[in-house]
């Protein structure tokens, strides 16, 4: 019954991988429900006190708002830049295109702490005070290449003669964009938006160096781990993870619904 054994092994392996990936997150959630301040296993007494404190905290509210604001700005700006970048990247043939394709992909592979430090040095050299705004810029440097790549795949996937046909049938450039290019790029733009938001939302190294006095969720978690740990750290961490998961789920469902509707 080798078939049966193979099947069993596949199941065991899959469960093992899922456990390795999700157990730490579960541990974090567990730690946040600890009644005492310091984490020990097994947990002696459970309580939701630290969750209540987390949700009530004015400081944490501000930090979450910072993270959301930065992520939203990064999403909007990166999708704008990346959409036109991807069109230039994948559609039009111009001198220097190959170099541009390589240059714009490169920041993905830079060590982020080095990138963050470099930008911090750059900002102070030209006399810019670091804040959440400089963090937005720093995130863009890393997120735009990723989103460009995601949208470029969509651009490669559609026949350029569609745009030519639209012009031939009387469209202005703007009408081509509205009637043909954007609707066809929409799935790529939508995934690009999710990528942008989530990459910014969870980014630590760039925020650490470039957000100045402003804090974001990952930056705050780190600071509290270094000094002043309470179960509010795993509580906020769990909250951030759940938020990301909820966003992905909603994004996936919206994408599915749009596809269903256009298919009917």
């Amino acid at each position, binding site marked *: 019954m080798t078939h049966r054994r193979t099947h069993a092994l596949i199941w065991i392996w899959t469960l093992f991988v899922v456990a390795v990936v999700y157990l730490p997150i579960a541990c974090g959630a567990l730690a946040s429900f600890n009644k005492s301040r310091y984490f020990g296993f097994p947990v002696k007494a459970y309580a939701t006190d630290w969750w209540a404190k987390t949700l009530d905290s004015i400081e944490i509210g501000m930090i979450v708002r910072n993270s959301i604001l930065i992520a939203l700005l990064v999403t909007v700006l990166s999708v704008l830049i990346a959409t036109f970048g991807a069109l230039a990247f994948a559609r039009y043939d111009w001198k220097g295109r190959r170099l541009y394709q390589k240059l714009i992909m490169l920041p993905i592979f830079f060590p982020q702490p080095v990138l963050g430090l470099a930008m911090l040095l750059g900002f102070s050299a030209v006399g810019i005070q670091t804040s959440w705004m400089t963090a937005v810029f720093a995130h863009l440097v890393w997120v735009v290449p990723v989103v460009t790549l995601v949208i470029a795949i969509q651009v490669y996937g*559609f*026949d350029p*003669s*569609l745009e*030519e*046909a*639209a*012009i*031939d*049938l*009387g*469209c*202005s450039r703007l*009408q081509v964009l509205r*009637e*043909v290019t954007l*609707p*066809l790029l929409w799935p790529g733009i939508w995934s690009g938006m999710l990528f942008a938001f989530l990459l910014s939302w969870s980014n630590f190294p760039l925020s650490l160096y470039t957000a100045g006095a402003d804090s974001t969720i990952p930056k705050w978690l780190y600071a509290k781990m270094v000094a002043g740990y309470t179960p509010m750290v795993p509580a906020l961490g769990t909250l951030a993870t759940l938020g990301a998961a909820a966003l992905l789920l909603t994004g996936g469902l919206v994408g599915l619904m749009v596809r269903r509707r*256009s*298919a009917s």
Partner: protein
Amino acid sequence: MLQTSPPAVPAPASARKPILQLVGVRKSFGGFHAVQGIDLDVREGEFLTIVGPSGSGKTTLLRMLAGMDSPSEGNITLHGERINDVPPNKRPTCLVFQSLALFPHKSVGENIAFPLKVKGVDAAARKARALELMAIVRLPETYHDKNVMKCSGGERQRVALARALAYDPEVLFFDEPLSAIDYKLKKTLEKELKDLHRETGKTFIYITHSLEEAMVMSDRIGVMRAGKLVQVGTPEEIYGAPVDRFVCEFVGEVNSIEVTRGADGGWSGVDVPGAFKVQPPRGSAGDGGMDRAFIVIRPEYMRVLGPGESADNRIEGVVYNEYSLGSRIQYQVRVTASGGGEKVMLVELSRSRALPAGADARVTLGWDAPDAFTLRS
């Protein structure tokens, strides 16, 4: 009802005035000369096909006519006005792409009504016109809301055609739209396209590498080779009086015999021994002052001579292969070549006149000088 006057007969295409004129049109990409000096008058309402092998520059020519490229040199005029740099959305012309370029995110009806939407026509009028056009291209009304990607190849052709008609262009261009369609459907669509041409009275310019397509549909055919228009004429002219060996071989199978003129003024074969009677080349007085030439005989003009039958020219040979072409049969006949080798001649006979003996039969091939044509070597 009494009819007092006969119905108006449209003027023959050859008598109509030109709508599109090309004078010395050239197009180069870097050092590559894709189109090398084309002069052409396209007459209003005609079906003109540009045919040529791939790489002959026909697609580049079409893109210049449609406004997607502009000529490096020369002029393109529409109704006498220069349109070299007029963009496609400002030209009363429309191109049916090889890929058809249907919008995958729009339904059949939305695709067809697209040019109307761009013009700002309201939704109700758009739908009404889309349904009218669907009837013209023989698409069922129920297809209006169908996903265009779920249509078959033939249906997509019709959608693309209806969409082009919705733009109401004066000239329609076609870039090999039937190249990916199976044979039988292609034959149907060719006929429908020809009918549509007659019904709409618009000027059609069609490009293809398939001469068969060109022959079936066109009023005139232009043969392109290496960026130049080698010959423009009716299908009969192209087939019956090709200007050179390229056109001649492009438009069908031929037998050719090279001949040279002797001191006495008579012609004798170079690759096949014997004396031949040669027809003067078309359009030139006498023999055009040639010393060497090719006699070209199409397989269907080659006869198999029975006892007592005569012809201007004759060659002895042995049948060694026969192919059925349906209603016709083609024979390959070996004849003795100069120097002792062999040369293959093609003979095509209708099935009712098939050779009784078939393979290995000795035959006498013959043709009259006016049934062949003479080309410069």
